[in-house]
């Protein structure tokens, strides 16, 4: 079964009730079976896995695509039982991965390649950030033709304030109650600056749309239904291949997500899992990931973004706060008040 037909929505952290995978694909036909569970769409990551499978003909790699909540639940259960099925887990819901590592569900591994990672992209030598994906502002190129594109949150705020009617019903962002990734970005935003509150207020004034699913948002921007989409994962825009959609890395700060890779404690194919980790960190794999948009170079010359403006969502225990029930409820209430004040 090919995963291309799947909605990009499936990659996001949705409160999916089903505890099972959404798609499965096998690579290679070797004697050793290796199970990789991931939240990344098979269609996007296929070239990378294929290259690894070609280098390791002894393996039969089973790639399971999961929703992040389901994957989290499953991994937690397997961790408690002590018998993990997955040999490696690769998820964009990094706060859940941090939770798993904190709960002693991961196996440690050290090598020159992992130690070369910046500290924000590894924790305890049990969790490693593989990709580099900025949260961007997507915009409809035609709508801003000749006009000044807002290059930062302040510019966006000013634009909305000056001309609210243009933007009414034309701003989209993730529904954080429905999208785990949206929640993670909103949470990170709420930590970064007070801009977040002002932004939400502006969104409220122009009746911004909170919706699920990157694909839907990108589609909307491409068709001109939305002028601007806030906090969209850049990698999805790159892989959506919609030339009508422009991408802004906000110049005040740009959140950068690094999908996290983890090897469950007691994994059966630990050595293969570390081999895959080593492979993912090679220049070759990083180049492949870059081609599919999962690694953004964010070149300073191209984007005008200085390194200090990049806020990599650090793999650290501070992310546990994002999972805290009280805290989550507060943020959601705030969000609800903004987008559904009438309710």
């Amino acid at each position, binding site marked *: 079964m090919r995963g291309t037909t799947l909605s990009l929505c499936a990659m996001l952290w949705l409160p999916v009730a089903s505890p099972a995978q959404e798609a499965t694909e096998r690579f290679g036909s070797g004697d050793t079976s290796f199970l990789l569970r991931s939240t990344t769409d098979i269609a996007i990551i296929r070239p990378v896995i294929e290259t690894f499978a070609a280098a390791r003909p002894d393996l039969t790699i089973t790639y399971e695509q999961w929703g992040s909540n389901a994957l989290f639940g499953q991994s937690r259960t397997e961790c408690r039982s002590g018998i993990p099925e997955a040999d490696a887990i690769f998820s964009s819901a990094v706060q859940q991965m941090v939770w798993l590592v904190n709960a002693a569900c991961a196996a440690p591994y050290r090598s020159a390649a992992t130690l070369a990672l910046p*500290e924000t992209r590894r924790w305890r*030598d049990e969790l490693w950030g593989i990709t580099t994906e900025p949260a961007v502002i997507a915009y409809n190129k035609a709508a801003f033709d000749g006009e000044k594109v807002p290059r930062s949150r302040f510019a966006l705020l000013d634009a909305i304030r000056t001309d609210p009617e243009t933007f009414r019903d034309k701003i989209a962002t993730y529904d954080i109650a429905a999208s785990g990734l949206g929640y993670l970005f909103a949470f990170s935003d709420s930590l970064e600056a007070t801009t977040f509150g002002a932004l939400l207020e502006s969104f409220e004034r122009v009746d911004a749309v909170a919706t699920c699913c990157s694909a839907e948002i990108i589609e909307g921007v491409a068709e001109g239904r939305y002028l601007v989409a806030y906090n969209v994962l850049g990698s999805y825009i790159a892989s959506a291949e919609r030339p009508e959609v422009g991408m802004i890395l906000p110049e005040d700060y740009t959140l950068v997500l690094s999908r996290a890779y983890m090897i469950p404690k007691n994994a059966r194919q630990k050595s293969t899992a570390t081999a895959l980790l080593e492979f993912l960190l090679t220049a070759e794999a990083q180049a492949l990931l870059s081609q599919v948009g999962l690694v953004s170079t964010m070149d300073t010359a191209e984007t005008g973004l200085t390194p200090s403006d990049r806020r990599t969502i650090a793999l650290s225990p501070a992310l*546990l*706060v994002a999972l805290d029930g*009280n805290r989550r409820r507060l943020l959601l209430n705030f969000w609800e008040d903004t987008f559904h004040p009438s309710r």
Partner: protein
Amino acid sequence: MPRPRDLATRVLVAVLTILLLGGLLVAASTWWNGRQAARQAYDRILIGAANDIAESIRIQDGAPLVVLPVSAFELLAQAPDDRIFYSVTGPDGTRITGLDASLGIDGRARGEAGFFDADLNNEPARFVQVDRRFVERDFSGTVQVTVGQTLRARRAMTTDLMLDALWPMALAGLALMLIAWAVVRRALRPLDAITDDLARRDPYDLTAMPIADLPRELQVMLGAVNRFMARLDGQLEAMRNLISDTAHQLRTPVAAIRVQAEAAVDESSPDLRSRALDRLLLRTRSLGTLLDQLLSRALVVHRTDSAPRVPVDLREIALEVAERDDHALLAPGVALSLEIGEDPVMVRADAFSLGEAARNLLANALRHGEPPIAIGTERRGPEAVLWVRDSGPGPEPSVMARLGERFNRTSGSGENSAGIGLSIVRAVASAFDGRMDMTRDDTGFRIALVFRAEEDHP
């Protein structure tokens, strides 16, 4: 029997043991200190985070609500690789929020200031529990905040602190060891030299070992050994002399006695036999005197080596010798005068040896000198003198030069030679660090024993 270890090894092993024990103590103490320091440092972080969380609790709609502060977790991330636990519970133990409801961290073990140790996911961890009391209109009670952290950073810090402290100490220990080795080697070098010397020494070699450059303790020891060897040497020498003297001195008279005895036996005429017997008797008597002298000399030589030296008044010696009747036997009718003063003339010596010497001097004067004869003592500055004087001219210069040597019994000196007698005198003089003086003047010939005077003895 196992081979005894050498001194250097013993000392080095002792030094090494002391250093090792010291090093272990120091290591244990720095480990303990490091552990305490790390514990304090990270306990502060822990309680800081717990207070941070406690501060963030507010009452909303009659229930406590925790706005979990990221700062608390950033504080905990000071231990970047440690796992974290937190939970907030209400008054009746209900869970308000927390990391993982399935982790039952038992706070009952909480000790001083709310800290306690427990396992977190099978890893040892440190916890703190902080209480916050609320007395509000719609909520009152105590909310407990529990925060915990595994010990990785603490251990790393303990190790770091310990290693930081131990590195220089280990280097210092090594330096001390090298210095100790060098010092011990250096201190024991003279001993090695002596050991070598002794190992190579001929067992019959009784000469003194050089002690000039040795440490004091070794000088004392070797000095004793040297003195012992010198005495042994002296005794051996004396024994050899006695045997050789006796053999030498007795051979001729005994041969003469045998010849005369044979002559007497062969003599048929009673008159001649009687004369031969008289001569035999004379010879025998002379032999007796000679034997006496030989034994006396051996005794003197022995005593000078072994008898303790005590203060002796030379006047008493002179008096005793003068009052004995020996001289009357040797030379009846000869006038003997005693010339001694009022004050004692003290020396430190052996009274018997001095008596023998004086007796021989007197006998010598009686036998060879001319009357009148005098014996006396005097104190001459730092010297004490015991002398015998006769009125004759004394022996010829050629004889005088050899007087007192051991073998000067020339064929012409006759049976009652002064040879052995004066050799006794000379032996006594040298035994007590004195000398024998011979002077000739108008009044006659005088032989004196001169010693260093002992201060007056009470």
